[in-house]
Each structure stands twice: as C-alpha cells, then as structure tokens.
C-alpha cells in the first residue's frame, strides 16, 4: 500500500510537467493572432472571418492584434522571438517572409524561424493594360516590349515584393526588358494606369476584379481561368508556364511543441476548408488553398530556392 503510494507520487511527478504541455490541455487561455499589417487589409479581413470558427473549435477566445510595419518584417522579427507555447500565432505572407530575410538588412528573422501551420489562400498576380490601350494580348505586349526595350513602363506595388519578383521572372522568361515604376499600393497603381501614366501594371487579382470593365487583363497567374474573371486568359493558356502569386497563411514560432502545432494546424485547416469560407474568398478574387503544415514547409522551401536564385541574378541578395 505504502509502496503503491510512493510509486503513484513518483509517477505523478514525472507526468505532471509533461502533462501540462500535452495537447489534451491546450489551449487553456486566449490565443493571440498577430496580423503584420494594418487593420482593414486583406490579412485582417481573413483573420476576422476565421476567428469565430477557430473560437468554436479551440474553445478559447482568439484575440486579433495588429503589428504593422516594414511590410510585415517588424511583426515577423518580434514573432520569431515570441514564446513558442502556441498562445501566439501570426499571419504569414509568401513571398514576403522569404524575400525580406534574403534582401533586407534590418529584417532580423529567418524564414524558418516561422513554422507554418497552414497556407490557406493564394492571390494570383495578373498583367493589365488600360481599356483603350493599343495592346490587345499578351503576345502583342511581349512584341511591343521587345520592340521598345527598357521603354515600356509597368507599375508595381513595392520593391522586393511579389510584383517585383513576378516582373523579373517575366522578363527572364520572355527575354524582355521593362521599366518598373514602383508605387506604394494598389490604389495609386490603378489610378496611374487609368490616367495613362504607365503602360501596364502587375496587379493582384483581388484588385483587378473591381476594375475589369476599365482595363484589359492580358493574363492572370492561375492554372485555370478564374470564375470572377471569366473573360481573361491565364499565362498558361498562352504558352507561358508562369504562375505569379502571393500566398497567405499562419505560423507559430519554430520551437513550438509538435502536439500543440498539430492541434492548431487541425483547427486552422478545418476552418479554412469550410465551404462558406471558400465561397467568400473566391468572390473577393482569391484562390482558396489548404496546405497543411508539412506541405506548407515544403512549398516555402521550394519557393525560397527559386527566389534566392532570382535575387542573386539581379544582385539583390544580401551579403551574409
């Protein structure tokens, strides 16, 4: 009897710390969901859409917090040092989390400091010209760019951004040279295109959807035509294996225990795979994705290799 008590005490002692970290117990309190961008942006809108489902599945409040700055780098730098206990998760954007550590001196995080739980959505990038432009197709655009090397102005939003990379990849694939005009966001980009100040723009599908009557979208970076842009072809249709896009997902700090990661991963995947979530995302001009943690990590690793090479070719890689 006495021996049994001793054994059970010992057993309890050894189990106690392990138990407190075990997945069955998690989560015990509110989870903070960091958005690395200002309120009202797409990342925020989606987090707010996920919030009620996550709260239902996990049974704890989800607190959405904003930490905008440096195109996301501020939040990711801080988040990389956060306590890896699963109580803080953070939205991630690709290629941002790949490009920033590779090319920006002040971005003090590494891509693999952020362990993705899932990648839930992708924003295809398209090439668009003004409605009354003399360019009518991707083919004509490439011919025009070849005839006027370095003279065709194309608006992008942000340097070392998804648009910038898309443009560099496009130039390489089509053997052209474009002049990039860097605007600070989608609105000035669109305004300058419609005002005729730039020849073309690289635009996010979600931004192009609202202006499809005022522009000609020459190509869009999906494999199949988008339902919200039925009249506009893909790059693939026109013989270019080119799928420029920006992806959104969510991550935990690198050293978060596997069982907690798994629980969060499951909750997020369940949420973003709901049909009503899909239809909302599709309508706004995005493509729903549901990559799990493993797939996301593989995807990010592959993309990292591609961008590393591309940055090196243009001498944009940070000297380590």
């Amino acid at each position, binding site marked *: 009897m006495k021996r049994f008590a001793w054994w059970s005490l010992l057993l309890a002692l050894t189990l106690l710390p392990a138990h407190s970290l075990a997945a069955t117990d998690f989560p015990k309190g509110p989870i903070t969901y960091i958005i690395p961008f200002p309120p009202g942006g797409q990342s925020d809108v989606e987090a707010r859409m996920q919030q009620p489902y996550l709260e239902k599945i996990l049974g704890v409040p989800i607190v959405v917090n904003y930490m905008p700055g440096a195109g996301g780098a501020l939040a990711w730098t801080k988040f990389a040092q956060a306590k890896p206990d699963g109580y803080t998760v953070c939205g991630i954007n690709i290629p941002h989390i790949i490009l920033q550590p590779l090319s920006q001196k002040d971005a003090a995080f590494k891509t693999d400091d952020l362990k993705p739980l899932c990648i839930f959505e992708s924003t295809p990038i398209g090439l668009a010209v003004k409605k009354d432009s003399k360019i009518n197709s991707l083919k004509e655009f490439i011919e025009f760019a070849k005839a006027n090397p370095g003279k065709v102005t194309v608006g992008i939003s942000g340097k070392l951004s998804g648009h910038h990379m898309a443009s560099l990849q496009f130039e390489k694939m089509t053997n052209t040279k474009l*002049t990039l005009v860097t605007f600070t966001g989608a609105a000035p980009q669109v305004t300058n295109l419609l005002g005729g100040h730039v020849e073309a723009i690289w635009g996010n599908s979600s931004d192009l959807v609202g202006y499809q009557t005022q522009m000609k979208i020459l190509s869009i970076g999906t494999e199949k035509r988008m339902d919200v842009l039925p009249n506009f072809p893909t790059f693939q249709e026109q013989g270019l294996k080119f799928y420029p896009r920006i992806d959104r997902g969510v991550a935990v700090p690198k050293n978060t225990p596997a069982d907690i990661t798994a629980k969060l991963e499951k909750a997020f995947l369940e949420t973003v795979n709901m049909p009503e979530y899909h239809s909302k995302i599709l309508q706004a001009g995005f493509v729903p994705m549901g990559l799990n943690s493993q797939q996301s990590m593989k995807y990010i690793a592959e993309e990292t290799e591609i961008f590393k090479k591309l940055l090196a070719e243009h001498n944009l890689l940070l000297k380590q």
Partner: protein
Amino acid sequence: MDILTHIALGAQVIFQPINLLFCFLGVLMGTLVGVLPGLGPTAAIALLLPNTFHVSPVSAIIMLAGIYYGAMYGGSTTSILVNIPGEAASVITCLDGHQMALKGRAGPALGIAAFGSFIAGTVSVIGLMIVAPPLAKFALAFGPPEYFSLMLLGIIILIYLASGSILKALMMFVFGLLLSTIGMDAISGTQRLTFGILELSDGVGLIPAIMGLFGVAEVIANVEEEIKRTIISTKVKNLLPNLQDWRDSIWPIIRGSVLGFFIGILPGPAPVISAFSSYAIEKKLSKHPEKFGTGVIQGVAGPEAANNAATGGAFIPLFTLGIPVNSVIAILLGAFMIHGIQPGPMIISKYPDLFWGTVMSMYLGNAMLLVLNLPLIGLWVQVLKVPYPILFPLILLFCLVGVYSLNYSLVEIALMIGFGVFGYLARKFQFEMAPLVLAIVIGPMMENNLRLALVISQGSPMIFITHPISALFIFITLFLLISPFVPWIGRRRQKLQEKVEGEEV
C-alpha cells in the same frame, strides 16, 4: 438627378444611428477643444484617431471631420467671452467680439458667430458637393509629374502664407523633409537612416509627431505662462441677433463663406488666413471702418463664417487628389490609410458612401453645432473653469495612451516625447509647426513622385514642362517665387503677416 441620388446615399449613411452618434461625438469634442485654449483640433484628432480603429471608416472620418469644423464654433466662444482665442482661427474674433461682450452684447455676438458659421458651413458643403466629383474625374489626368509640380506649388504657397518669418517656415519645412527621408525608400526598397531600428522603417510616424508637437509641446508651453481668465460673469442673454444685426451681417457672412471656401482649397492655415482676409475685406467695404475694433457685428460675422467655410474647402484636395493642405487634413489622410482606404482620385467613385456620407454629415453636424452652441453656452463657459493642474496632466496621459495604442511601440512614445521637447523649443523661437507636419506627410509623396516621373521619362527633367498641367503649376510656382520682388504684392503680404499671429493650422 445624379446629385440627388448621391445626397440620398449620403443621408442613408449619416442617418444610421452609429454614424449619428459619431457625428455628434465629433462636433461635441470639436466644440470642447475649440473652447479650451491650448488644445486645438489637430491634437484632438490625433488623440482620438486610435479610438476609431474598431468602427467603420465612414464613422471614423465623420467623427474626425466633426472635430475639425466643431472647433471653429467653439473657438469663437472663448474669443468673445474671455478674449482668449480657443484656437488660432478665432484670434480676429476677439477684436470686435469681446468688445461687443464688454458692451453687454455677448448674446448677439455669440449668436451671429454660430449662425454665421452655420450658413458658411452649408455653403461650403454645397461647394464641396458641386466641385469635388468633377474634379476627381479630372484628377485622373494627374500622374507623377503633375503631382510633384502641384505639391511644389503647394509648398511655395504654404511658406508664402506663413504667418511668421518665411525663413523660419522654410527651415521647418526642410527639417520635415529630412525627417521624411527616414525609413524604407519606396522606390529601391532600401532602409535609410533607420540605424537598425525596425520601427523606423516605415518612417517617422505622423501621429507621434503631431501628438508631440501639438499636444506635449502645447502643454509644456501653457504650464509656463499663466493664462489670465476673466470670464464675463454676467449672464449671457438674448442669443438671437435682432433684425438690424442680421441686416448688418448677412453680406459679411455670404462674402466670408465664399472667400473661406476658396482659401480653404489652398494649402496653408486656411481658417486663420480666411478669417483675417474676411475681416480686412469687411473693414474696407464698411462705410465706417473706424468703428471696427469697437464691437461691430460685421467684424464677428464675416471672419467666423470664413473660418468655418475654409474647413469645407480643405476637404476638396483630400477627396480628389489625396493631398493634405494643412495638418488637420494630414491626419485625416493618415486616418484613411489606417482604415485601409488609399487616398486619391478614386475615393469618390470607389467609396461613394464615404464621400457622400461625410459631406452629408458635415451638413448635419453644422446643424447639431448650432443646437449645441446656442443653448449650451453656459456649459462651455463652465468648461473654461476646469483648473489647468487637472487638465494638463490629463492631456499628457491621453497623448501617451493614444500613441502607445497605435502600434504598441515604445519607440513611438520616445519619438513623441522628443517631438514634444523640440516643439516647445521651436515655439519659444517662434517657429511654426504646420510646415514641419506637412513636410513629414508630403515629403515621401513628393520624393516618390519626383523619382517616378524621372523613371517614366527615362531621366529627363523636361517631363515637368512637356506635360501641360505640370508646366502650369511650375509656371505659377516661379511666379510666386519672384513675386516678393514685386513691391505691391510684397506690401500686401507684409500687412497680412502683421495681423496674423496665430500659430496653429
């Protein structure tokens, strides 16, 4: 009619209970800061901005705009009753307004100030409705070279109209431009002057700067000097101006409204300048100019109408081009961006509810102000009696909480305190704050547009002259630059300068 459907849309927005509430809160806060000397609309809007994060952008803008024009009403109250201008735009109202009060006619003075402001507010809202939408369509013709030239012109006007020394205004502006180069360079993506502080990579925050310059600095400066408060103790009665008063002031009000509206469109401290110009015009047109300063009602009606109309005019460049003309509008621009609305020519067509809702709210807000101001005058006088040892620490607390709640960043708190100390010292040496604040906002826009224009033109600066709109702005800029050497204009400016002693907005 097109415009009627838009008005209906605006009405639909503003009559939602939440927006009515925010409109009311805005004008209430506006009147309050207008009444309180030492706290102007700029600081108030900056203080309240973080509290608008969780409401819709329309409600937020409606409230923030309400603070702006509400302050113009409140400012006149203290000018008339206490001879302390609640904010700079009401400085001129002291001249005749307080004299009227001393003669026992405080009621009609307050009444005509409120009615004049209401009429002017109405005129400027109608002007905004008529002018802004077509201008926004035209604004599509504005590319990088046009924007750059326009901003260049704007700065020259701003400095030209500076109330103090031109040289000091220019120095503050250039200092602001230097500050605005901190952070990530939007064109090349490299970090500049951040010293490895990631918080600085988006540049020096506008809100910490404004809270420091207008909030903290103002408090320090006010602690130092003892404001004499001799409140007219007799009860204010007869708020309604009589028929003779109306006859005397209706034309000054109309002239002031139109003048204020157009001056409002120009960059610079429009409410201040328009009030002074209106006073000067009324004095010139009067058959008895010698009576000005002894308590004539025209001297209250015209300037009060003008400073209110100017607030409406100032929204035109904001909604059509996304360019701020003064520090209040600069914060509103910041509010747009915080709420995910990219300012520019597309605002009116892309967010019609925002534009028309705000416009209609201004109309309704003016009506609310009339109600708030006339019967509640006694209450505002009581507010004036809140002891400063209670008020000032509260303002400081609000500044600290306000800045921290933006990004939870201690760096920004440090920045705010730095700006506060700097602002205090600058004030001591009679430097103006407005050029500095505007430079922080406009600096990155100017730099970007200059460089984008040159990217588009493959490096040729001729793009600024070959584009006709841009060439026109450059031409006017050059004209203004040489004009101080033309004696007639130089004298005028000097006259205006002598009168204007205001320091804010």
